[in-house]
């Protein structure tokens, strides 16, 4: 049986990386209210620093387009470090290219904004199942 965030007695640690403050705070709020232990980061660099400092999220919600380090850059850097949390890329773009590229770079899921709670939970469950 797979672990779901909702019925897991130990709270699932989720990291959210998005340069857009409103998206970052709303996803953090949604994850928290659904019983997850959510931490938001404003850039890929901040998240990688947090990993270096001992943070160990089980799941990562990663924005595709960010200045400085893009979602793809973060995925590649995680891969070069020997892997990271199960990653769900969230993008405001349309089109299948981004989907193919992030999956190829190691992401488990790719969701297009805006995201319903149901889709998010389902994606996290799938991601956790895969990891």
């Amino acid at each position: 049986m797979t672990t779901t965030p909702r019925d897991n007695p130990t709270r699932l640690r989720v990291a959210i990386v998005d340069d857009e403050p409103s998206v970052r705070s709303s996803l953090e709020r949604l994850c928290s209210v659904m019983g997850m232990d959510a931490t938001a980061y404003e850039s890929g660099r901040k998240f990688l620093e947090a990993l270096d400092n001992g943070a160990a999220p089980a799941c990562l919600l990663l924005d595709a387009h960010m200045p400085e380090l893009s979602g793809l850059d973060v995925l590649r850097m995680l891969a070069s470090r020997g892997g990271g949390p199960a990653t769900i890329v969230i993008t405001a773009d349309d089109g299948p290219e981004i989907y193919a590229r992030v999956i190829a770079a190691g992401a488990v899921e790719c969701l297009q904004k805006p995201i319903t709670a149901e889709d998010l939970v389902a994606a996290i469950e799938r991601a956790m199942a895969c990891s």
Partner: protein
Amino acid sequence: MRIKVSPNNNLRDLPLGLGLAAFVPVCLLGNLLGALVRFPEIGSAVLYPPYAILVAVLVASPRRDWPWYFAASVLTHALVGLSRWPLTWLLLADVANAARALVAALLLIRLFRGVPALDDMRSFALFGLAGVVIAPAVGATIGAANAIVHDMPASYGQMWVGWFVSNALTGLTMLPGFLVAVGNWRFVVRRRWSRARMLEALILVGATVVISALAFLPHFDGGRTIGVLFYAPGVPVLWLALRFGAGGASVGMSIVTILGILGAGRGSGPFHYLPPDENLLTLQFFLALTAIPLLCIAAVDSARTRAVQLYRSVLSSLEDQVAILDARGRVFVVNESWQRFASSGHICPLEGLQVGDDALVACQQVLRASEPDFERKQFTRRLHAGLTAVLSGEEKRIDLEYENPMNGERAWFTLRVEPRRHSDGGAVMTRANVTDRRRTQLELDNQRQALAHLARVGMLGQLSGALAHELRQPLTSILANAEAARQMLERNPRDMRPVSAALNDIMSQNRRAANVIDGLRAMLKRGETRVQSLDPSVLVHEVLEIAHGELVSRGVGATAVVSPDVPPLLADRVQLQQVLLNLILNACEAMDASPRSVRRLQVAAAPTPSGDVCLSVSDVGPGIPDALNGRLFEPFVTNKPDGLGLGLSIARTIVAAHGGRIWAENNPGPGATVHCVFASASTSGPAREPLAAAVLA
């Protein structure tokens, strides 16, 4: 510029037979008149009309006919003189006469290319030199040889003076009249003169004859003269000079001369107390000195009349409405077009102004009036200031343009005020209907606007992905917050605090999405141009917001550098956004080949040293290639494989329509910068706003 109005009515198309038929009797009469009064001692004529007749005919006829006129002249001379003079005397005199006439005719033709009009001082002076000085001197030099050849009592010198003065007097008094006659014979034949003018001419000629006869012919005993009478003929002759020009003066002076000489021949006249030869010579000088100022007056007055007629005909032929003001602003001349124009409650307070009205007072009345017409008052204020400045010499010219309905349709006019080029000062106002030009301009502006709109729509198409991205961000936040709020309520309906925070975020993100949609709508809409005061800082941030998605997806870091003291500018918001957006997209594309880590773009707004507003967009790309340098803003110039090359050209059109300028330059470091400079709202002022609005409308 000197405008010569040539009469061009001469004898060139008069048949020779007809010409000779008129020439012979007139010349015969002239010879008889010449023979009537002679210097008793030196024997030469006091006045020799055939000189004037022959010169006039030669000047006006084709050269192939000249021998015939010379022959006729010799014949008439022989008919009158053969009984008195030996043949050799006559022949030498004929040679002198022919040489004199030939010199006069050739000089006049050379100087005037035909019959001289004698209607200004220059032509009168040249005529005098040729017909009164040079030709008589040539004739006298040859003719006086008769004194030696025929061993006459008078010396060569006396004879020369006699010949010269009589022909100079003839040239002065009679030649202008004959020249005018041959120059205008068709004019006279066709009777273009009104009956009143004919009557006036006849009365004046009659009066001259009567007064001259009274002055010169009566013989008083005891050497008494009534001196004042000798000036009396001057009155009708002056009148003739002023009303009928050089021809009139010449006819009058000819009458005075003939009667004066006839009187002197009878031993009367002003100088009858002198010996006969001296009496005649003094009279000749007296007549010549009287003729010169009268002919000068005729010439000056003709020139003045011609100038007045010319300016009147030019003014009346103008479609534009012209009014001329004196130094105080009072109208003293208006052209017919101005008179025709009826005032109908127009914006311009000077319309309907007539001669005697005061333009400044007309403006002041509008300014003082309690009428609420703001536009009319505004225009009048500018007109009054401009008019005062031109009248005082502070301004060289003012041009005002205004719209005014005419016959129920839109119509545009320009009012130009320029200083009157006159020592007394004053101004010339010209009002022109420029509706056609304006309509064409409006049509052109309309097309430009349509093109700019198309470019804008195209640009938004290019940005569609980025714009969708921009909308999805707030939508993501809204949806996530709404889901969170719902779950919070499901779990603990009483605790509203966290729900409230989520709802606040929903509202703020909703506003953000609405702003994106509003911005898009404004860019997509082809609305009317609205010139308004814009804060450059707001403008820069709005544009960066629209471009945000594109900047992020291209990995370009953008910064806004807005100087705190940058003044507001007057412009259409959407059009300026379009310009900046175009520059930003160009900058992004220019950096496509640069590594993502270095892609940087800066949008700056700063005041210029002269107080204008400079907006600039810089990138760190490869810079402007040499091949495009200087041609960047021309249409269809591009280095993009799929670009039309219209973006920058349209940007330039928009900037120019705002009265600004745009240019690009390579940075000292990597990349290029495009600058746009606009007048600040304070310097462009209210006077410029309607213009800009009109250009863009």
